[in-house]
């Protein structure tokens, strides 16, 4: 299951960022993320990609591009969300440096997975105003899971090409089987 920019755009469609950002990506791949990427610092994006490698299933490839496109698009016109994502990614990176004396992006996936579980991010309620585990769950883990499972790509792995939150039209609910992947997912 190779994630593409197109998937990220589909995920964005579910969150309202698609019209402005998505089109720009699709229409002019060479100038892609210049404007939007500036909104989220490189190191924050790199941390998100590292966490995505842990919380996405192994079947997902192309995670880097997907996350960068999705996150950039999503926070493009939401200052509060951008601040939350950037601050929380920084706090998580600081925790990695504190515990392992290394940047988060240098941790191998098993170690990062263990760190997140030791922080109890797996069992914490997402809370944008809570302590670190609640914020990581909200701004990082759930942001990533939402992008994935509210898009046809993640949905398809589970068996639904038009998941809740994705405006995938009014054909799919009538079909007996999942449509083939090459068809437009909306």
């Amino acid at each position, binding site marked *: 299951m190779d994630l593409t920019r197109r998937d990220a755009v589909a995920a964005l469609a579910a969150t309202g960022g698609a019209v402005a950002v998505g089109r720009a990506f699709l229409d002019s791949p060479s100038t892609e993320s210049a404007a939007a990427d500036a909104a989220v610092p490189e190191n924050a994006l790199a941390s998100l990609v590292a966490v995505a490698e842990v919380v996405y299933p192994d079947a997902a490839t192309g995670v880097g591009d997907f996350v960068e496109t999705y996150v950039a698009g999503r926070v493009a016109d939401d200052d509060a969300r951008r601040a939350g994502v950037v601050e929380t990614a920084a706090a998580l990176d600081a925790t990695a440096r504190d515990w392992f004396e290394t940047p988060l992006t240098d941790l191998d996936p098993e170690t990062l997975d263990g760190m997140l579980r030791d922080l109890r991010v797996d069992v914490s309620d*997402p809370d*944008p105003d809570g302590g670190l585990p609640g914020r990581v769950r909200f701004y990082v883990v759930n942001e990533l899971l*939402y992008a994935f499972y509210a898009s046809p790509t*993640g949905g398809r*792995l*589970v068996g*639904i090409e038009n*998941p809740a939150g994705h405006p*995938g039209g009014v054909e799919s*609910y009538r079909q007996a089987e999942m449509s083939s992947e090459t068809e437009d997912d909306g």
Partner: protein
Amino acid sequence: MAEESSDRTPAPRADVCVVGAGPAGAIVAARLAEAGHDVVVLDAGPRFDLADREAQLDAHLRPGVNGLWDMGGERDAYATDGPRDYPLNAARVKGVGGSTLHWQGMVMRLHERDFELRSRHSVGTDWPIDYADLRPYYAAAERELGVAGADDNPFAPPREEPFPLPAFPPSHSDAIFAEACESLGLPTHSVPNARNSEPYDGAAGCAGYGTCKPVCPSGAKYTAERHIARAEAAGARVIDRAPVQRLVHDDAGRRVEAAVYATPDGTEHRQAARSVVLACGGVENVRLLLLSDSEAYPDGLANSSGLVGRHFMDHCFAGAGGRIDRPTRQNHVGFNTTECHALYDGTDPLPGVKLEFLNYAGPSPVTQALGADDWGDALLDDLRDAYGTHLAVGGLVEQFPNAENRITLDRSTTDDHGNPVPKVRWSVGPRTRAAIERANEVQVAVLEELGAEVDWVVGPDATGPAFHHMGTTRMGTDPAESVVAPDCRTHDLDNLWIAGSSVFPTGGAMNPTLTIAALSCRLADRLDGWL
């Protein structure tokens, strides 16, 4: 929230003051403004900006973000004292558009028997009007709400013209159910939806977000914002965040003179009007009348009968669900496409029962993922296990009117303006319980016919309300036995009219809003004539 309307001062004496901007009030406002009358609409809640719907979808799907429609603060405090809890703030929205901002949007006509329960079965009461009286207004209401439907329901009352929009075709799971229902002698048919199967009246067609209840980002689902926009285009003045505190009448006690409302800056204003239409929903209509007590009306305005607040009814949910060994393709859309009215008009059971075949049985993967305790491959395995083979049959069951089920004021608790809050007393009687059990038998039989493993049943103990607030200002011809006359005008006051399901003498088991809209079209005609 949309930009604040800055000027909340009253207009000069209006022809009509409509209190409440849900569908009941908005339809009256649009029709009367278009007929050339000066209309002012006051709503307790805010305007919600259409541009925020995507963010609201996000808030709905993602745990950790609260207050999609801002219900539940001090403004909305309430009490319950019945044998059953009643979650009032899950059951309504305050804002321009009212509860249709959150609603599901299934819209059926009542059946003929619903107007004649006492004559036919010696239960409940008859309506003072019958289906034939309402029939042309039902057609008008279907146009107002942009209903997508098909004339394929063998149990539905007669209709004179096609639905304005084609029905949404049946889902894959509908086809699975249809086989089983056929062998059990239960014909299935389409569901009329207040949802655009194609673009209608300037609004987009359904895009399949699947989150209709509580929010439709595409605008395909009808909300009463459409009628407020029409009213404003025709010159009506609409003031949001303007909760009416009380209605004041003349010395003779025959006419309402003004609605006194509060604004966010703490000021009270007085909107004078030649006529007032009360359209605050089945709970707040009662509260406002009771808060408007006076020397002439010591038990509450328009309450000479003592019936304001009594006979509170809702529809009770009955349901069963399980899993089968083939794909059921659930949770693509957030609305239903097949129902069965076969149990509705008979006598076993006597209360009306409507069966609904859900298109959203079982967990939605994205919601499950966001609340899971795991991630990576383990999460994907869990999602795959949980998704794909669920089926569910829901249904609504009728309650007959019972004077002890009622809305009163709880004088020990006050809202943000110091007014006593509504108190809900709600119970489920033996006939309704038995009808819920009967519905469950049929629901389980359908699932078993499909070889399903039934893993949940909501029966008479677990049942809850469908959030349809009916009966509390009932319609009738005898002023001692009812609050409003057949034209929806109160018996007590010449210029006070009531819109909404509080006027229903009985409620059947059909979701009420098409009937609310039909009565509002009719009320607007009558009030236009009166003006």
